[in-house]
């Protein structure tokens, strides 16, 4: 078996043991993936790659700048991905440096997760206080609720600053060198950094991770002025609350902003290119989400249209948005609104990284990687010692995916092979009520089932049946699980309801560890809690087939 042979050869400090079931499950490692990978790829090449990695790890482990390198690991980009990788690298004893050209924390801390959650917390409370009917049903009276825009914006900004300094301090205190400047890969294991256009300092590193992240994507024809036509970067500063805002794009970013703006008193119009709103979600969840998050609120929408041209407001005229039919491209209508938020996705930030020096060609800006996050060059080969994690590789553009990928890479360069199972990574949308998901949507599961020839079953439960949800008078919501009735394998779980973003982890844990429905059915959940919603799902599932022993080791 190639892997064990490699282990004997390296004899390094970290010994990749013989394949035990426990190892296979770490970080959601897909045992099938591992097995197939090693069998189908040329065994010699795979073994050679492993030997190289393990040898490097063996000699360089723990020693500072050993074997002539300035650092064991240099990370370009100190966002969530880079930070996660840096912390884990230090834990593994690697001398680490991280290069940041803008602000530590990157998008997540400064222009993404952190300020948006602060604003959503405000909007959630605002919505509750304004819902007289809801308050009355609980027996409460609220005299008048209002907000001060500047204070709300300050809350978000202060939080971002706080987290930013926490991140910086955590890295500093662990001995990670924070280098200021824009990094470029100039050659194998060589990085230059400095002010933009003046990369003066050169350092060498045994391994390089690119974690430069992404920026909001603005389609052509749209003119951004930062005040009346803007992206999420500007919106999170909350410099104004418009009466009527058009949100272009109805994915999770657009949806979260619609929650914030409607709670603060704006009216919203969605402009969506596809025929359905919220195209990335499971269709059943999207339908219910529309009923709960869109229909009762001051929101309307146009689907199947592109915003071909957006002109910012000037001279007293409103923002003009020209809509064209997505298929026929003919003009449909022109909207006149007070502001427009462009939430059409994010584009990778990979220019000027010097990738051409390594014969790497980006695809629409994304850096191609294999399942180990190794960068692939134009000929389809993995570039040794060069990795890319997070939004820059486009595999799963979520903060926690970036740090998980970072940890996976650090594990590999420390001598332990690791392939991250992306299907076990949950995602959440922090509207009120929240939406969360892990694994496949129902259509995707059906497609896979048809292709691979197995059956799937779906169970659903409503939050209306949950005591805690009813006690809070927040019974709107649904949870659904897609699983294989023959093996009990959980394929996907989707939740829409109170605290959905927290509840999903029971399911994502199960998928990561390969837990089957029958194993988790009898586990006890505290009463009365929202987690009983998931308990209901597990208990409602019927596993009929002879379960395959999924936990058996891969045959040698």
């Amino acid at each position, binding site marked *: 078996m190639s892997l064990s042979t490699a282990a004997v050869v390296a004899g390094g400090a970290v010994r990749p043991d013989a394949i035990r079931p426990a190892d296979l499950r770490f970080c959601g490692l897909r045992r099938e993936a591992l097995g197939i990978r090693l069998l189908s790829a040329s065994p010699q090449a795979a073994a050679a790659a492993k030997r190289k990695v393990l040898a490097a790890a063996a000699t360089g482990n723990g020693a500072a700048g050993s074997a002539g390198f300035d650092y064991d690991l240099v990370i370009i980009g100190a966002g969530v991905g880079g930070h996660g990788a840096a912390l884990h690298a230090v834990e593994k004893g690697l001398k680490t440096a991280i290069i940041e050209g803008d602000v530590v924390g990157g998008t997540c801390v400064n222009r993404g997760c952190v300020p948006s959650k602060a604003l959503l917390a405000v909007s959630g409370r605002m919505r509750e206080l304004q819902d007289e009917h809801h308050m009355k049903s609980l027996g409460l009276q609220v005299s008048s609720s209002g907000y001060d825009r500047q204070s709300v914006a300050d809350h978000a900004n202060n939080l971002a600053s706080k987290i930013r300094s926490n991140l910086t301090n955590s890295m500093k205190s662990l001995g990670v060198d924070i280098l200021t400047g824009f990094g470029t890969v100039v050659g194998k294991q060589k990085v230059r950094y400095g002010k933009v256009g003046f990369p003066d300092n050169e350092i060498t590193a045994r391994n390089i991770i690119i974690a430069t992240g992404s920026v909001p994507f603005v389609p052509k024809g749209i003119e951004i002025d930062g005040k009346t036509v803007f992206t999420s970067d500007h919106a999170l500063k909350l410099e104004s609350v418009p009466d009527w805002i058009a949100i272009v794009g109805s994915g999770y970013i657009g949806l979260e902003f619609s929650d914030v703006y409607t709670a603060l008193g704006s009216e919203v119009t969605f402009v969506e290119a596809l025929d359905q709103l919220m195209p990335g979600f499971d269709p059943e969840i999207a339908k219910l989400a529309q*009923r709960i998050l869109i229909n009762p609120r001051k929101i309307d929408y146009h689907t199947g249209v592109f915003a071909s041209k957006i002109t910012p407001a000037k001279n007293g005229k409103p923002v003009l948005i020209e809509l064209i039919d997505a298929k026929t491209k003919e003009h449909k209508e022109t909207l006149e609104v007070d502001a427009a938020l462009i939430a059409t996705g994010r584009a990778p930030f990979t220019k000027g990284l010097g990738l051409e020096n390594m014969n790497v060609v980006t695809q629409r800006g994304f850096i191609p990687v294999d399942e180990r996050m190794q960068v692939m060059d134009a000929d389809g080969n993995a570039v040794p010692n060069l990795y890319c994690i997070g939004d820059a590789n486009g595999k799963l553009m*979520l903060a926690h995916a970036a740090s998980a990928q970072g940890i996976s890479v650090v594990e590999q360069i420390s001598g332990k092979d690791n392939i991250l199972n992306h299907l076990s990574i949950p995602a959440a949308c922090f509207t009120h009520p929240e939406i969360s*998901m892990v694994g496949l949507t*129902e*259509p995707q599961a059906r497609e896979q089932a048809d292709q691979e020839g197995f059956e799937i079953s779906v169970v659903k439960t409503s939050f209306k049946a949950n005591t805690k949800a009813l006690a809070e008078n927040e019974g709107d919501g649904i949870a659904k699980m897609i699983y294989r009735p023959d093996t009990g394998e959980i394929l996907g779980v989707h939740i829409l309801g109170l605290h959905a973003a927290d509840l999903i982890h029971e399911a994502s844990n199960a998928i990561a560890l390969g837990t089957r429905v029958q194993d988790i059915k009898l586990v006890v959940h505290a009463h009365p809690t929202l987690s009983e919603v998931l308990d209901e799902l597990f208990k409602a599932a019927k596993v009929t087939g002879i379960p395959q022993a999924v936990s058996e080791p891969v045959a040698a």
Partner: protein
Amino acid sequence: MAGLLHLHSTLLPSASLLRQRGGGGAQAAAPRRRRACRVEAKIREIFMPALSSTMTEGKIVAWNAAEGDRLSKGDPVVVVESDKADMDVETFHDGFLAAVLVPAGESAPVGSAIALLAESEEEIPLARSQAANLSSSSAAPPPATQETVPEESSLAPPPPPPPAPVAASAPSPATQGGARVVASPYAKKLAKELSVDLFSVTGSGPGGRVVAKDVEAAAASPTKAAAAPVAAARPDVPLGSTVPFTTMQGAVSKNMVESLAVPTFRVGYTITTDALDQLYKKIKSKGVTMTALLAKATAMALVQHPVVNSSCRDGQSFTYNSSINIAVAVAIDGGLITPVLQDADKLDIYTLSRKWKELVEKARAKQLQPQEYNSGTFTLSNLGMFGVDRFDAILPPGTGAIMAVGSSQPTVVGTKDGRIGMKNQMQVNVTADHRVIYGSDLAAFLQTLSKIIEDPKDLTF
């Protein structure tokens, strides 16, 4: 995993992946295979199913198909909210959805018909007229139109729009022709709920935009005050000739003459209606009418004063009625009738409003059953919509009291602390049978009623 990618990189929508479920099977409008029309015509009813053993009533969340759509057996037609969860309900037969009897947002008891399914396209008009006759219909469009347009009526039914994505993609009427109206999302929603034509509203927002308060103002301007629907235009009376009574007019005349034998007296009261008007404005959008509010308030006051709900049938005894049935006088073409809201104290305001709407339609269509108009125990008569400030009504035989309600008018009043203020006040005048109801009983009842109306928070139960 690809699905998760779609969340964040809408740069590359994989259209095939997304079209698979096509909106969760909601698109029953997609044409199916051609069906040969059967010879025997059949209009089937789609019933509200019992989705759980404890369910007695279900609320229609959304219709997945529109009137006129072709359906195949097994297609999900409607989404129903039960006490446990939302369920898709399928049709058991092929056919065309001919008429929606209960629009989205409303409830119906388990087992009642919620829609009519016609076997062939020709039967759709027949089904529609059948729907118009069925009492539980509240959105039966004329056979000509193919879409569910909510009926224009001062009783404002508010069905939320069904979520079929294609149909709802351009909610503004703007794109047709050159005429365009710029209206904010909430204004559009309100216009739909309150049946206001956006083109007729002048906008007060930036750039002439129509905003929510413009729509509310437009909806409120036609007579908002009162309760009983406006009388149908009377045909010209043939002057200089003698026209005999119709049956109904004969009945009215007989009753009025009989009432002369009853010793009646009258007590008047002025009630401040500011709080009630505010409440009405708030819940108007849910289909609640002033009539329903007044009936409910009266019923609640009668609970505390049961003698006012009694009558004297034989001149020797009190007949205490077990239920509180409020009859409301309605002027209809050629006459007067009093549809009865049974057990008005026991029903919540929304159910009461719904029932009232049904009764009025039946009254207009002359389809009221006897027990729906002669089982009243207390009568309400409202001439406020004509601007009448006070009047007294004649007591219908068999009941103990009738209350005449005038219009609510802004009045200058002196307040307790010696200041002058402005309040909306309405005068009510009750005529009662002194054989069973005495002065103090009536006065106490009116005091309770005025307390309820001036502090109406309990009316919404």
